[in-house]
C-alpha cells in the first residue's frame, strides 16, 4: 500500500510538472463550475455557447503574443498599439462608406499599413532597450492609447453613424457595428442547435478564421525565418554568431505581433458587435497576457497550443464565474475573480522568468 501511495504521488507530481500547477488548479475550478452550473440553475448549453463565443473573440489577440515571446521580446504588454491600428482601420473603413462584410475586409486592409508603421517604430524602440522590453511595452501601450484619445476627437470623421450625435465632431465612445461587420465571421457556417431545442450556437466562421491564423503562425515557426526567430529568443548571442541580424528578426516579430493585435481587435469587434474607443484598449493587454500564461507559456517560450488552452481556460473562467457564482451566492464576484486570476497569473509567470526556459 505504501508503494502504491508513493506511485500515486509520483504520478501526481509528474502531472503537475507536465501540465503546470496553476493550469491544473484553474482547469479543475472550471470543471467544477461546469458541474455546478446546472445545479445552480444555469443552462449549460448557453454557458458553452458563451465560452465558444468569448474564445472566438479573444483567441487572435492572445495569438498576437506568440511572435514577440519567440523572439525574446517578452510578453507584448504593448498590444494596445496594435489595437489602435485596428481601430483606425475600423473607423476609416466605416468613414469611407463600406458596409457589410466588405467593411470588415477593408478594415483589415486599412489597418495593415498602420500596424506596419506602428510596429516598426515600436520595434525600433524595443531594440534599443533590450532586457527591459516588457516594462517599456506597458508604457508604450498606455501612452499611445492616451495620444489616440486626443486623435479620436481631432481627426475629422464625418460619418454620422460613428461621430458624436450632438456636435458632430469627434468619435463616439462606443458605436454599434450592426450595419457593418457585426457577426460577419461568426455567422459564416454557423451551427445553431436552437431549432432542436438546445441553446447551443457554434460560431464556426470565427473559429475557422482563428484556425487559419493559428495555422499560419505554426507554419511560420517551421520556416527558416521562424526558426531564426525562436533561436533569437532562446540565445541572441548564439543567433548573432550564426550570422543572424538579431535586430531585424526582433523587429519582424514586433510588427507581426502588432498586426495580429490589429486583426485581433477587429475580430473581437465583429463578435462583440460594438467598437469601443478612447480608453478601452487599456484593458485589452492584461487578459491576453494572462490567457497565454495560463496556457502554459513562459516569458520566453510560447506555442499555438498554449494560446488555445489558455484562451479556453481564461475565457471559460471569466464567462462561467458570474453566472454560476451569482446563482449560488447572489453576489457579483466575477470581476474580482477575473482580476485576481489575470494579475496573479502574470505575477506568477514573471517570478518564474529565469526558470521559464525549461
Amino acid at each position, binding site marked *: 500500500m505504501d508503494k502504491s501511495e508513493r506511485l500515486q504521488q509520483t504520478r501526481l507530481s509528474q502531472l503537475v510538472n507536465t501540465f503546470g500547477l496553476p493550469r491544473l488548479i484553474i482547469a479543475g475550478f472550471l470543471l467544477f463550475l461546469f458541474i455546478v452550473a446546472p445545479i445552480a440553475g444555469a443552462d449549460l448549453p448557453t454557458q458553452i455557447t458563451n465560452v465558444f463565443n468569448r474564445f472566438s473573440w479573444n483567441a487572435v489577440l492572445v495569438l498576437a503574443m506568440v511572435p514577440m515571446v519567440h523572439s525574446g521580446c517578452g510578453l507584448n504588454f504593448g498590444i494596445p498599439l496594435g489595437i489602435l491600428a485596428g481601430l483606425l482601420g475600423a473607423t476609416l473603413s466605416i468613414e469611407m462608406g463600406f458596409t457589410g462584410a466588405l467593411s470588415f475586409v477593408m478594415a483589415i486592409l486599412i489597418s495593415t499599413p498602420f500596424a506596419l508603421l506602428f510596429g516598426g517604430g515600436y520595434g525600433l524602440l524595443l531594440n534599443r532597450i533590450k532586457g527591459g522590453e516588457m516594462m517599456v511595452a506597458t508604457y508604450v501601450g498606455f501612452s499611445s492609447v492616451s495620444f489616440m484619445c486626443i486623435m479620436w476627437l481631432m481627426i475629422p470623421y464625418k460619418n454620422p453613424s460613428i461621430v458624436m450625435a450632438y456636435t458632430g465632431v469627434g468619435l463616439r465612445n462606443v458605436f454599434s457595428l450592426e450595419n457593418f461587420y457585426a457577426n460577419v465571421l461568426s455567422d459564416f457556417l454557423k451551427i445553431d442547435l436552437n431549432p432542436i431545442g438546445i441553446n447551443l450556437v457554434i460560431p464556426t466562421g470565427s473559429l475557422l478564421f482563428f484556425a487559419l491564423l493559428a495555422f499560419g503562425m505554426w507554419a511560420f515557426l517551421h520556416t527558416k525565418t521562424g526558426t531564426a526567430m525562436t533561436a533569437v529568443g*532562446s*540565445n541572441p548571442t*548564439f543567433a548573432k554568431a550564426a550570422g543572424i541580424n538579431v535586430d531585424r528578426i526582433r523587429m519582424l516579430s514586433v510588427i507581426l505581433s502588432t498586426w495580429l493585435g490589429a486583426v485581433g481587435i477587429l475580430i473581437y469587434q465583429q463578435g462583440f458587435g460594438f467598437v469601443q474607443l478612447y480608453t478601452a484598449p487599456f484593458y485589452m493587454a492584461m487578459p491576453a497576457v494572462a490567457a497565454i500564461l495560463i496556457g502554459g507559456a513562459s516569458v520566453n517560450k510560447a506555442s499555438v497550443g498554449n494560446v488555445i488552452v489558455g484562451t479556453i481556460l481564461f475565457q471559460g473562467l471569466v464567462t462561467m464565474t458570474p453566472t454560476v457564482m451569482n446563482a449560488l451566492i447572489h453576489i457579483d464576484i466575477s470581476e474580482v475573480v477575473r482580476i485576481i486570476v489575470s494579475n496573479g497569473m502574470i505575477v506568477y509567470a514573471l517570478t518564474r522568468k529565469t526558470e521559464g526556459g525549461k
Partner: protein
Amino acid sequence: MRGIKKDFFGNQVLTDINFTLEAGQVLGLCGENGAGKSTLMKILFGMDVIRETGGYSGDILINGEKAAFNTPFDALAAGIGMVHQEFSLIPGFTATENILLNREPQKKNVISEVFGDRLNTLDYKEMDRRAAAAIEKMGVEIDAKMIISSMPVGHKQFTEIARELSKDQLKLLILDEPTAVLTEKEAEALLDSIRGMAAQGISVIFITHRLHEILAVCDKVVVMRDGHVVRDVPAGQTSVDDITRWMVGRDVQSTAASIETKAEAADAKIIMSIKNLWVDMPGETVRDVSLDVREGEILGIGGLAGQGKLGIPNGVMGLYEAGGTVVFDGREIPLNSPRKCLDSSLAFVSEDRREVGLLLDESLEWNVAFPAMQIQDKFLKKLLGGLIKWRDERAIHQVTQKYVDQLQIKCTSTTQKARELSGGNQQKICLAKAFALEPKFLFVSEPTRGIDVGAKALVLDALRQFNRESGVTVVMISSELEELRQTCDRIAIVSGGRVAGIRPAADSSESFGALMVSQVV
C-alpha cells in the same frame, strides 16, 4: 595548507596541495592559467563559490590551529586580507574613505546618543591619521584626499592594498596579480612595499605572471600546474627559466610534439592573412596582430589569459569591434559582420559554450543544424517554388544522428535539450555545429576548457581528423600549451596583444614559455 582538494562538478582542479608559509615571509605563487591558483586563494579566503560548489577537503592551519572559513568575513576576522585582480573601490569616495570604509573611527554626538551608534559622526581626523599610517606602511606617496575616480590605476591599486594594511589584525595578505595594471616604476614601488610589509611581520602570498618580480621579492616560490604543486623552492635557488619550465612542461624533453607534423607545410599557400588586427574585446584586447595561416595546417595560438589570444577569432568573426585587414582566400573579409565571415566558409567554435555556442533550451538537432540552415539554406524544403523555406526535420535528424555517432556524443536522443548534456558533450555539439557548416576554415577557441581528460582527447582527435581528412584549415586557440603542441603544426604565442613569435610545435616548452611572458602588459 595541507592536502587541499577541490573539484568542480567532478572535475578535479586541485589535488593534494601542501605548502607552508611563515610569518613575515613572501611566497610567490605562479602557474599557467587554469593551474588552480585562483581556486586555491578562493578557498583560503572563504569565498562563496567554494561552498556553493560543494566545499573542499583538506585543512588550512593558521598558527597551528585549524581554520575553516565559510565567508570572506571569517577570513577577514582571522587576519587574512585579499586584493583582487579587479578593483573593489567606490569611485566617488576619497582614498581615506575607501581605506576605512565601514571601519571608520566614530565620535558620539547628540543624535546618536538618542538613536544609537548607527548615527555616530565619523572622526575624520582619526581617519586621516590611520589612512596616512596605512599608506606609510607601504612606503609610497598617495594623496589620501584624492577621489578614487581621478586617480591613476597604480594609485588605485595602492589604495586597495592600504585598505588591507589598515586592518590591525592583518597577518596574511593575498595579492592576486597586483602588478598586472601597473607601470614598471609603480611595480617597483609595490615590490618595495611588499618587502616593507614582510619586514613588519606580515606574510604575503603574491600571485603574478611576471616571473622576475617573484625572484626579486619572494622568499620562496610555489609553482602549480594542473592542480598540483610541482615545485616548492626557496626563491634564491631558482631562475626564471626554471620556473617557466615547471609551469608549462610536463616532461619537457620527452614530450612528443605533433604526431605527424607536415613537412611540406612551409611552402603551402597562405589561405588567411591577418594584418594589423585590433580587437576591442574586454579583458582580451588585441593590439596589433599580423598573422599568416597556411592552407591545410593546424595553427595553434597560445598565450596567457588576458593577453589577447581569444580576441583574435572573436574579432575576425565579427563578434567584437575590430579593425585591420583580413584577407581570406584572396578576398578581403569585412570585419564586424559575422554573416560575411560565415558566407565565406569560415566557422567559429566559441570559447563561451553556454553563452555563444549553444541554444541551451533547444534540442541537439536545432543546435547542430541551425547555422547551416540559416547560412547555407541546408536542411530546408522549398515549397511553392522556393517562396517558403520549410524546416526539413528528417534531414536535421539525420545529420545530428551522424555527428552524435561520429563524435560519440552521449545523449538520450537527438531531441534532448543541450542544457542537459555534460560539458564535454556540449563541446562536441559545438564542434558538430561547425562541422555541419562544412567550412574551409575553422576557428576553435578553447575547445577543451572545463572538460575531462577523456573528452579532451576525443575532441582533439576529432579536430585533427577533420583537418587531415577534409583538408580544412584549423586555427586552435588554447591556454594549454601541451595540448597545442600535441595537436598543431605551428604555434603562435600572443603576448600583450601582439604575436610574440611563431614556432614549430616541436620546439621546446621553454621557448614557448619565454615568448608567453615576453611582452606581458
